[in-house]
């Protein structure tokens, strides 16, 4: 039996009279890659922010790795073993690539208030190993501020893996990337996740990425979950086609070959 990493029950949030998220429930198992999709304003980001502690739900329950995490701060959720990447990358531009990862390792090793040690020597090899894993080993000594956007995304993935997470939360991991880079990054993420049995929850606008890599897809529309299932099921769901994909657009294998150009 594969353990449940994340279980969400009847999660709701409204702003004024607008129901941003309405009674959303789902589960995520170890090693599973789950995509959360939906048109703009569907409630994906609100959902995501509640999961990682940046936003308080009005009602509902979130169990992450067996613990109730409603009301906990992002840093407390991270300590449970949750890695996080952002829609717009958040890294430390005045440090080198290696130092970026080392800071996360310092935090993981609970050395944040160590005033006397040398950070340069701290977990140097472990940082290098993580960078090699995401293909950034050659850039370890480069200033982070000089990296191209696609490389920043890969660095973020390395940082997110520093606490040996069991769950990765990725908010639009491929936003702002070239089509080629998108596929590479998601392939990399998927292979790492499968190898280490990490669960991945990601939001995404690029349907190629979603249908190629997700094991299961959740479709949100106007705050409610309107469909859930394997890529084939979701692709065939007439409600999803009507509401989400729009009229006249059919995502099948033939179409996909032409996409991404």
């Amino acid at each position, binding site marked *: 039996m594969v353990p449940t990493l994340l279980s969400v029950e009847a999660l709701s949030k409204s702003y004024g009279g607008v129901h941003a998220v309405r009674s959303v429930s789902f589960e995520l198992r170890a090693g599973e890659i789950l995509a959360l999709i939906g048109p703009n304003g569907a409630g994906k980001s609100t959902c995501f922010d509640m999961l990682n502690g940046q936003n308080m739900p009005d009602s509902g329950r979130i169990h992450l790795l067996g613990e109730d995490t409603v009301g906990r701060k992002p*840093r407390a959720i991270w300590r449970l073993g949750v890695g996080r990447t952002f829609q717009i990358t958040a890294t430390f531009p005045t440090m080198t690539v290696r130092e970026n990862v080392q*800071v996360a390792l310092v935090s993981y090793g609970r050395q944040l*208030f160590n*005033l*006397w040690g040398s950070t340069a020597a701290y977990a140097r090899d472990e940082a290098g190993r993580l960078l090699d894993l995401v293909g950034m080993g050659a850039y370890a000594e480069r200033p*982070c501020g*000089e990296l191209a956007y696609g490389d920043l995304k890969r660095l973020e993935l390395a940082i997110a893996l520093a606490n040996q997470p069991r769950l990765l939360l990725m908010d639009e991991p491929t936003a702002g990337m070239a089509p080629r880079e998108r596929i590479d990054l998601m392939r990399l993420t998927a292979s790492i996740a499968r190898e280490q049995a990490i669960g991945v929850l990601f939001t995404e606008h690029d349907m190629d990425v979603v249908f190629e890599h997700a094991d299961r897809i959740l479709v949100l529309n106007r705050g409610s979950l309107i469909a859930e299932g394997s890529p084939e099921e979701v692709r065939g769901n007439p409600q999803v086609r009507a509401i989400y994909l729009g009229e006249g657009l059919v995502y099948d294998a033939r179409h996909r070959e032409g996409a991404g150009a």
Partner: protein
Amino acid sequence: MAFYFVQFLTGLASAASLFLVASGLSIIFGVTRIVNFAHGAFYMLGAYVAFTLTERFSGALGFWGGIVVAALIVAIIGVLVEMVLLRRIYHAPELFQLLATFGLTLMVQDIVVMIWGPDDLLGRRAPGFKGAVDFFGQNIPSYDLFLIALSPIVLGILWLLFQRTRWGVLVRAATQDRDMVAALGVNQKWLFTSVFALGVFLAALGGALQIPRDAVHHALDLRIIVEVFVVVVIGGLGSIIGAFVAAVLVSELNAFGILIFPKISIILVFLVMAVVLIVRPWGLFGKPEAAARRTPGLTVTPWRPLTSGERLMSLGALVLAAMMPLFAGNYALTVGSEIAIFVIFAASLHFLMSVGGLASFGHAAYFGLGAYGVAFLAKAAGLPMIASLLLGPVLGLLGAAVFGFFAVQLSGVYFAMLTLAFAQIVWSIAFQWVEVTGGDNGILGVWPERWAASPANFYWLSLGITALVVTVLRVMVFSPFGFALRATRDSPLRSEAIGINGKRVQWTAFVISGTVAGIGGALFAYLKGSVFPDSVGISLSVDALVMVLLGGVETVSGAVIGAIVFKAANIWLVSQTDLSKLVLGGFIVLMVVAFPKGIVGTLETIRNRRRSAEAKKSALVTSRIEAAE
């Protein structure tokens, strides 16, 4: 009862000027995002120019005309300042804008004394408002009633201006999104200039209207600017209604505070401000700002520990400095000790500001607390010098622990203003609590013991402590804690997402920094043999900022060089000219515009450029070889 009512009206009348100046500051901030430190200087200039004009032209027309013309003249000066200086620094980090406008303030102080002399000037009474109105046996000056009526009228005019004119719509739009307004084809340059002119006009009008009530003197600027900061912070930066409500609140607190707590009347206002900031960090009527711009932000070169060669060089410089008593006289040694002490002070601020990204505008508070700590222990408790030196800085530590806890809840300009306000609290305690601190007379007779009394010995003591402190701070920069602090500065979002408790990290840095400043203050008390409220004053806080900036805000230890150069130049300058503020102010402005990276930062840039040029050259050579193959 009648007495309290009159006191209330007096408070309202004082609120008028405060509101005019504060609304001007708020309008300017709303559009340009510059906190104009020079606003107090424009207020003071308005008062001086109005004084001259109303003396020159007689009659009611001469008076009222003089006041309006004075405000217009100062507004034109403001336009020149905006076009020549501010346009160059709109995209600079906030800290630089605050410092540049502070430099202007310093220059105006000396210019005003040059033109109008150092004495207080008493202006004419306002024609038509010379008498007083009797209210149940209490007199209210009729001019006060005029002022009370004036501020709601000005508020109404401003409201109409912003709601009903095309210009007002553009200003409100620019306040919400500058870039969008520019993208819509609005000429930003002139919008900014006109907004600045209006803001300065209001400040100068506020100053000009004060002349029938108050003497005109050259310290008006700092007095009003601190109050105005308090007003806009309470009301919310960028909100005119907020400025109005807070101006009334602050003036009433002052008016009644004097009756209830005569000793701590100033503190009362600051306490209210601290409470407002904690409950509503963006002020009563303000809106949360987008994340503040990072204070550093000019380069992205990662910091490196010193190479072994550089280490040797630093050691050599230290040995050289330690040899100074062999050839220098007593005066030079005393100057040397003072410079060493200011290196400690600057390095402590540098740690908070460059590593932590928190630009404190009131760092003198902790320096001064250390100095007073030593004075209490040595004079009152009679402790030996070593014990006092070790325990004195604890007062700085405690102050930093209390104030720092509140200050790190904020960032950017709000952090700067809150730290300034806290420093003013400490200053008012030092100044007003005469029984304990001696007030303006200070505490005298804090002399070092025999073993440290000779200038050479004291110099060695100071130098040794300085070397130790600078080394320890450097180690901390590269320690895991230093990285956590820089991580919090670089990206609060990411650092929270990797488990860093940013507020706690920043608070710790604040306490470390305050303690180190306290060590500097403790030595300073022994160097001077006395402690005065000056060691807590704004000008000392600003000196520290300038030293850090001069050295290079983005370097690891630039403050050391900055402090040495600044302090030496300052001591020399004061001995050479009476216009030291003019020169210093001009220097600050020039530095912000021309050398924002500071001495060490500029040297590093040159070195990096040379290095990458060499790298390119060798790359060129290899590519040629490849081509040849």
